[in-house]
């Protein structure tokens, strides 16, 4: 039986993990490769690197991180951040990424999703959908797509956008609620469920995880195929094994 996935996400800036990872005795908590290796050993189902380096000149540092990760981790790795051209995708795949996540480029130029999935296959094209609720509490719920880390509104309806990029060939959606990101109060389940039910491809729920019940809800109530979390794992609040066993006890098929 296919298992739900737990995906730790590492924000990387200038080749270093932002805020660091402190759940095991790492020699260097800021080294993304050491963190990746620790998560591989801890039983993570996949790993996600989001590069938030502002300068394009430093792209080589990220490529080196991906390359070194591929030498020691034998699980799927998704890399996102700054992917604008097919050359960016090729470079990441050749370095050892299995999937590439795109956000702004997919919003500004949806045809890029088609081009990329035709060239590299849908299986490696992840569209990062950053959505924020724009309706008032007494209105019918509505979410809008934001870019630039949630700062820039686009006027695009999140559900319509998700359907559109799916039709263009995306293989998976990484759905982040910008309202919930960093809040630790749980996923926006309404948003997650609406998008998961609207598209035929797997959805990764992200944004807002503060405890293990939130992970369960993402799958059971949000209908997501995978859950992504960062801080609850990075700072040792919970281990991957605890999360998996908690989800399994809630009746979710997990790879234990």
């Amino acid at each position, binding site marked *: 039986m*296919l*298992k739900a996935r737990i995906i730790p996400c590492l924000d990387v800036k200038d080749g270093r993990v932002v805020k660091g990872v402190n759940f095991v005795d790492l020699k260097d908590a800021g080294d993304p490769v050491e963190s990746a290796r620790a998560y591989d050993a801890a039983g993570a189902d996949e790993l996600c690197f989001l590069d938030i380096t502002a300068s394009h000149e430093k792209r080589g540092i990220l490529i080196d991180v991906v390359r070194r990760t591929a030498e020691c981790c*034998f699980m*799927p790795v998704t890399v996102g951040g700054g992917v604008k051209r097919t050359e960016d995708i090729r470079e990441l795949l*050749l370095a050892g990424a*299995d999937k590439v996540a795109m956000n702004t480029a997919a919003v500004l130029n949806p045809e890029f999703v088609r081009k990329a999935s035709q060239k590299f296959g849908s299986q490696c094209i992840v569209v990062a959908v950053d959505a924020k609720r724009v309706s008032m509490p007494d209105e019918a719920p509505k979410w809008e797509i934001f870019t630039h880390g949630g700062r820039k509104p686009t006027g695009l309806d999140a559900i319509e956008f998700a359907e559109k990029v799916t039709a263009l060939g995306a293989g998976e959606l990484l759905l982040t609620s910008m309202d919930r990101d960093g809040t630790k109060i749980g996923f926006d389940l309404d948003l997650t469920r609406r998008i998961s039910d609207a598209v035929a491809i*797997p959805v990764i729920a992200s944004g807002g995880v503060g405890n293990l019940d939130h992970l369960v809800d993402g799958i059971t109530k949000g209908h997501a*195929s*995978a859950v992504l979390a960062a801080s609850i794992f990075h700072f040792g609040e919970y281990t991957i094994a605890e999360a998996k066993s908690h989800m399994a006890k809630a009746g979710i098929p997990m790879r234990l």
Partner: protein
Amino acid sequence: MKIAIIDYGSGNLRSAVKSFERAAHEIGSDAEIVLTSQVTEVAQADKIVLPGVGAFADCRAGLQKIEGMWAAIDEAVSRDKKPFLGICVGMQLMAEHGHEHETTAGFGWIKGDVRAIEPDDKSLKIPHMGWNTLNACKQHPVLENITTGDDGLHAYFVHSYHLIPGNREDVLAETQYGGTIFAAVAKDNMIGTQFHPEKSQELGLRLIGNFLKWTPDS
């Protein structure tokens, strides 16, 4: 022993090379792993690995773009009986035909066609993406020390199409996803895995190690 992993511009081959190197190290093998797009290297290799991601027709076109490559692989596998491992679309290419977007001929070593996954439960997501267990359909040296069944090790899958073998005896392992998915095939000197051993941690490294050790019965 020389292992040729064929590079024809399809996806991520670095992790495939690294996983073969790691698996070789773990079993104490001094196998030389080469990533190659040279026809002569395929002819010289002792074992051949054909990875593949993307669409069936694109992978076939990618192989055919290298002059003589398609024929060189066919000869090495069907005439010279060199041990062969096809991964994902590399397994699918072993079939007679693929029906992804258009109908394209494969190598035809395994009777059967590659078709879209159609789960009984329409709410199931396509691609079939993630970790799933295997049910072994026959004994084979490449499955040695790999626990199968519901409590067994997991393999990483990501695919929307699958090979439906015409001969039941060619099926090495199955998995379940709204119906049966043919997870691996085995015939004579050939192995194909729909899952990605290079991404499947313990199961994957063991399978690759077994493939490196394997000498098919002649």
